[in-house]
């Protein structure tokens, strides 16, 4: 009887196979015949105890320029040392712990510790340091102390670099059906960044950075067989330890970023009804900033009541109508309601207090996005997708208070051919909106022919082709080519056209069990055209900006040498970023027409040898070389131009080296 039933079931399934999608979830398994008491798993391998490795690194660092610290994780000249590790622990009762560390002791590194019981609870501790270097040994005549920038004949020397140190603790608890979590993190950001003030002539200086951002997140979720729901809170608290900056002869020439906080409460859910899935979310938020205002004549407030209420809502549905056709739709609504008060404040003119008053304009922004999409399987391995997206944006106090963008797109996916996947995508988008007006509160002084590019009418057409070809079982090729053109057809002054096109090619080769190699090449061009009017009438100058990027790389790894003890490998990367600006028009008197050089290139070489000293110990010797050169025609000497003080020429030209020897102890 059972046999007959099975035959009937199978026959029904065979008939309905084209309608019902396979669902191999373990919850649907037919386990009638299973008797787990007979399971022994003698051949299973127990992973209890400690596994992983601990690695000590030491080496010699020769950055030549602080900027090399980005690639070498340290700008220190000389001997460097660090510790890395990846250790896991598991016991018989399911308690587990893991610890991952990467280059602890260097400027860039992280550590993460997790302890808990599988599937029940987990405590996580996390630390990450990121340091980004812009330029080293920058000099300024200004010394900052307690909000006062004091000029001195002795130059203040510092690095333009920002160090972030983030520490976090998190705890999660739950058993599948319900889950909860709470996480607190604190990030300290310190260093200097390039800035400038006007007093009354412009002076570039190193803005000291010292701030703390605290983040508190918590949430709870519930899950059923065909539904999910989640409630979350996200809170962020920013505190700046640097005051407003003054000069001995002029107060508050540079206002500090004010302390602020933001809160968001989110509830989201998903419901699955057969082959239709619906999901939705509501987020309500508030951003608050009521830091003390600088006290100057004409300021009526001690502190401003900056407050923005936000609301974000979304509903999306997708449904497999049959095995060939999927349709989907979504609606998003986002509102930024600026509740801050509006007052009149005295403004400065170019070089002195003019006495003119100006009112701050708290801007509201509201966005709605509607999307429709469909995917249809034409035949096995042939699929076509199409969709229509519409975005509407309303903004107050703007030259154009309403814009809308309609975008139609289509894709063709072909996977039916042997070893080749082809994807073609094309889209056509048109942006329009309300009448473009010169608004009194924003830019009444602008040329009436100006159309700001983020508000202007625009037609955007784009095509993209992606190929993936497994030439042989051991060679894989990926090729992407793309072209996009933005036409700002109603713009006479401003950005009028932009083209973005390029390709990326990637080849991966598995030459043998032990030898793998890769190579990639890519280029991108972005050509933009804009017009301006020096005479405040029709266009009398044009700028053609031609950006170009080249990216090449290759690498090889050869393992299994010396009876599986030695692995050799190397990677090479070249990239070149170029931006050329060409000027033309009756207002242009310079015969050169072309701007000065603006490019940056680098060669990166990394070579390594891994040697297994024993089943428990390994050595790695690596060498990294960085050749970096950049130039910017706008960079100039500290006092090259009367009335402008710069931080000097901060271009880079260096060869950096790093040799590292690491010793790893394998715990199992």
């Amino acid at each position, binding site marked *: 009887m059972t046999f007959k039933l099975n035959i009937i079931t199978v026959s029904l*399934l065979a008939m309905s196979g084209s309608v019902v999608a396979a669902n191999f979830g373990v919850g649907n398994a037919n386990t009638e015949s299973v008797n787990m008491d007979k399971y022994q798993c003698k051949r299973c391998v127990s992973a209890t105890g400690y596994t992983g490795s601990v690695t000590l690194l030491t080496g010699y660092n020769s950055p030549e320029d602080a900027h090399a610290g980005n690639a070498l994780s340290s700008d220190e000249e000389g001997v460097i040392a660090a510790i890395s590790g990846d250790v896991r622990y598991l016991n018989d009762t399911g308690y587990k712990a893991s610890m991952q560390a990467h280059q602890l002791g260097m400027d860039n590194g992280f550590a993460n510790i997790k302890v808990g019981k599988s599937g029940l609870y987990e405590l996580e501790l996390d630390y990450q340091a990121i340091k980004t270097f812009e330029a080293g040994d920058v000099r300024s005549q200004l010394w900052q102390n307690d909000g006062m920038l004091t000029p001195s004949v002795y130059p203040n020397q510092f690095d333009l670099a920002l160090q972030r140190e983030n520490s976090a603790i998190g705890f999660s608890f739950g058993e599948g059906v319900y889950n909860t979590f709470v996480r607190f993190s604190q990030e300290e950001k310190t260093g200097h960044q390039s800035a400038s003030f006007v007093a009354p002539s412009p002076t570039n200086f190193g803005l000291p950075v010292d701030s703390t951002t605290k983040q508190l997140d918590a949430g709870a979720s519930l899950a059923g067989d065909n539904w999910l729901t989640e409630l979350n809170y996200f809170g962020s608290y920013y505190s700046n330890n640097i005051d407003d900056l003054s000069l001995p002869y002029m107060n508050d020439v*540079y206002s500090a970023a004010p302390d602020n906080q933001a809160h968001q409460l989110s509830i989201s859910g998903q419901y699955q009804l057969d082959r239709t899935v619906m999901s939705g979310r509501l987020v309500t938020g508030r951003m608050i900033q009521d830091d003390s205002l600088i006290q100057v004549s004409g300021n009526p407030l001690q502190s401003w009541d900056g407050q923005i209420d936000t609301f974000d809502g979304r509903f999306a549905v997708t449904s497999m109508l049959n095995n060939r056709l999927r349709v989907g739709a979504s609606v998003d609504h986002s509102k930024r309601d600026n509740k801050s008060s509006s007052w009149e404040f005295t403004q400065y003119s170019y070089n002195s207090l003019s006495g003119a008053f100006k009112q701050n304009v708290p801007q509201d922004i509201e966005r709605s996005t509607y999307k429709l999409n469909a995917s249809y399987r034409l035949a096995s391995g042939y699929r076509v997708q199409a969709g229509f997206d519409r975005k509407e944006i309303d903004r107050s106090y703007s030259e154009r208070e309403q814009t809308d963008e309609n975008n139609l797109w289509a894709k063709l996916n072909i996977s039916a051919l042997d070893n080749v996947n082809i994807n073609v995508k094309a889209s056509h988008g048109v942006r329009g909106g309300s009448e473009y007006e010169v608004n009194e509160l924003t830019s009444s002084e602008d040329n009436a022919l100006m159309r700001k590019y983020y508000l202007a009418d625009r037609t955007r057409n784009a095509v993209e082709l992606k190929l993936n070809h497994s030439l042989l079982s051991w060679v894989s090729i990926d090729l992407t080519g793309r072209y996009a053109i933005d036409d700002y057809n109603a713009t006479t002054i401003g950005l009028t056209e932009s083209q973005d096109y390029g390709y990326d090619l990637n080849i991966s080769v598995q030459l043998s069990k032990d030898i793998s190699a890769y190579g990639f090449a890519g280029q991108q061009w972005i050509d933009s055209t804009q017009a301006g009017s020096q005479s405040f009438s029709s266009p009398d100058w044009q700028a053609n900006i031609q950006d170009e990027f080249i990216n090449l790389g290759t690498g090889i790894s050869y393992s299994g040498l010396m009876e599986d003890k030695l692995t050799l490998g190397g990677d090479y990367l070249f990239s070149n970023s170029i931006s050329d600006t060409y000027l033309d028009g009756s207002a242009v008197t310079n015969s050169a027409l072309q701007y000065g050089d603006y490019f940056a290139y680098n060669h990166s070489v990394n070579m390594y040898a891994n040697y297994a000293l024993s089943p428990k110990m390994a050595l790695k010797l690596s060498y990294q070389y960085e050749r970096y050169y950049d130039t910017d025609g706008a960079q100039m000497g500290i006092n090259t131009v009367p009335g402008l003080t710069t931080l000097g020429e901060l271009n880079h030209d260096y060869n950096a080296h790093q040799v590292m020897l690491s010793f790893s102890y394998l715990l199992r």
Partner: protein
Amino acid sequence: MICRIFNKVLIGIAALACISLSVNATPWDKLTGDQLEQQLTEKFTQGQYSPKGADSCLMCHRKNEAVMAIFDGAHGAMNNKQSPMAGLQCEACHGPLGKHNKGGKEPMIAFGDDSKLSASAQNSVCQGCHNDPKQMAWHTSTHNLEEIACADCHNVHSAKDPALDQLMVNDTCTSCHLKEKADMNKRSSHPLKWDQMTCVDCHSPHGSMNESALNKPTINDTCYSCHAEKRGPLLWEHAPVTENCVTCHNPHGSVNEDMLNSRAPQLCQQCHAPDGHASRVVQEPGVDAFGGGKSCLNCHNKIHGSNHPSGSLFQR
């Protein structure tokens, strides 16, 4: 005695056949994806699970390192009741054994590049257990609509899942996202190429209810999570900054410094053409305060907004 030796030889041949089948062509290679899915669905419904669980599978597959690596990760843990290895073991994911071990002619549910099984069928295995808030937006996500399989990014037969490790996740993403891989190497970009930041710091690969599968409700909220000093609200707002950070910046990287789409003064002049200095053509960089140093930002340095009562022109 002769029978015993004969039996051992037979078992040896069978074992070798199993091992070779696991790496070479299989009898079900000739099936189309639809036929394979139908056959596996029938097997799944019949539910002919092996009598001994994983031992039945490992009799043939234990010499395959990739197979045995399951025990290094969470999915191979036997002491976690939520782990497949604590339940139906290998068959929890690969489906009932059926007659697969009798001549190796019956397919099992397989994952990854070489599997002909549709992504949705493969993913149904994972989703059978992973029904948690991280998957909340999966069904409407681009990755789902593009029929990306979980196994295209994740590897559960491993101590380290390449999609969950900070040092590997960027490589996982950029194995498909070639343009973004190139962008990391531009003159200015977020520090992704050194794995100090990762793609998942901003994006949710499983989809999200936000634009571009971002982790935060808006683009600006995403930026503020690391750049909280720009969040404000500020007394004097710069409208395009408030509206959308990517009006001026490309967070994936740019040939210009500060990830700017263009450089000052031209970038500023794409929006500002007053009857005054901002309209003038800057003919050469590095010769005056308009085209030298920080260009427009020499004076209008608080370009992201100012909280100075007299900062309406972003000079203070």
